[in-house]
């Protein structure tokens, strides 16, 4: 018990310290490395809170995609000489202004204290919805409660959330123009690594998707892994030979939200309530939606890392 408390206290303090470093390091690259470490500690925190589903999602998205996104953006910022901290560029007046803003910690400390008090003074334990989830789990078509909530009980949220992901890609395409050209040919080691690692990642993604119906895992974790595999391939200089207008690419990108909307519309037509699955078919419907969602999430995340519309003409090994 003591050891557990010690672990929790150390982890909590570590989280705060790493977050502070990630936010206030003088060097932006250092800040990003600390942020990647922060994601790692967050995953451990999720484990300690009995939330392995979130730990998986945090690990897959945090370790794979977010870190790569940040590093990629930093590289492009350095290319336009904007990757430094602003202190060097700011004039004296700017600095004084910044200094006055640093006094901000006083009201923020008060706010934090107030919020902390609010958390501590929560009226006694409320059971939340765990009882309802348990009672209806049998009719949901899956036996992992988190997947049941995500794809059945609160499937409407998940539908909208897949649209958010698609929206991010659409927004990026609308402003970014074509993706930057791939960097130099990958060295043999990287090439070998990506050839060796990609199938493994795909295999684990498939496993997580399959296991997600009854144990921690599911479409998001699997999709994030696919996305990470895509990031790896992009980094190794691999480019799909498709124009940005290629219909097949856009079909996969919209597969997740598309299938979800189709199921919603069909159930609306059949039962008058959107996303109400007949219990007998709930399992298979969820599986279909999850497969489509996994593909879309993976391709979207990889597309977001690409940093622009895919180029059509480039051919790579």
């Amino acid at each position, binding site marked *: 018990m003591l050891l557990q408390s010690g672990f929790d206290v150390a982890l909590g303090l570590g989280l705060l310290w790493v977050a502070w470093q990630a936010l206030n390091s003088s060097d932006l690259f250092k800040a990003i490395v600390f942020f990647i470490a922060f994601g790692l500690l967050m995953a451990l925190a999720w484990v300690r809170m009995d939330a392995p589903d979130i730990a998986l999602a945090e690990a897959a998205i945090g370790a794979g995609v977010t870190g790569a996104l940040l590093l990629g953006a930093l590289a492009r910022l350095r290319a336009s000489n904007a990757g430094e901290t602003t202190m060097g560029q700011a004039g004296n007046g700017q600095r004084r202004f910044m200094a006055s803003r640093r006094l901000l910690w006083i009201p923020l400390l008060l706010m934090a204290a107030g919020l902390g008090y609010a958390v501590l003074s929560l009226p006694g334990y409320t059971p939340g919805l765990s009882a309802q989830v348990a009672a209806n789990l049998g009719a949901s078509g899956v036996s992992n409660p*988190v997947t049941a909530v995500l794809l059945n009980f609160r499937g409407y949220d998940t539908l909208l959330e897949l649209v958010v992901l698609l929206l991010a890609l659409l927004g990026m395409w609308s402003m970014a123009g074509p993706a930057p050209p791939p960097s130099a040919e990958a060295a043999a080691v990287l090439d070998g690594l990506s050839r060796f690692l990609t199938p493994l990642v795909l295999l684990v993604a498939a496993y997580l998707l399959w296991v997600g119906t009854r144990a921690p895992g599911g479409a998001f974790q699997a999709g994030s892994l696919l996305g990470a595999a895509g990031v790896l391939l992009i980094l190794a200089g691999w480019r799909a030979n498709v124009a940005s207008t290629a219909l097949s690419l856009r079909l996969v990108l919209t597969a997740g939200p598309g299938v979800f909307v189709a199921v919603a519309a069909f159930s609306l037509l059949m039962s008058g309530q959107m996303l109400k699955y007949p219990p007998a078919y709930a399992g298979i419907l969820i599986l279909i939606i999850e497969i489509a969602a996994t593909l879309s999430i993976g391709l979207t995340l990889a597309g977001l890392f690409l940093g622009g519309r895919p180029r059509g003409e480039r051919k790579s090994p």
Partner: protein
Amino acid sequence: MNAAVLYALVGVGLYSLGLYALIVHAHLVRKILAINVMGSGVFLVLVALARRGGEAGTDAVPQAMVITGIVVAVSATALALILVVKLAAETGYATLSGNRQE
């Protein structure tokens, strides 16, 4: 004080640290990191408080909400990063005030 409350307080701390950094720093990538740290703090509060009843209280609903939140956060981060990259390519600065034309 049990572990759940501890983590919830850490979440509040992360939220506040992020808010501070968001206001104080001018570099947009730092602001984006700040938003992400704030988000992690909120997620931590959301999940941790569900366990203040002890080991028995694993509530799947906040966990599912956090997974939704993580995906939303990644989308927002990606969109914000590409905006910064474009802005820097256009103006040479990755800040909101830095400005070459005006």
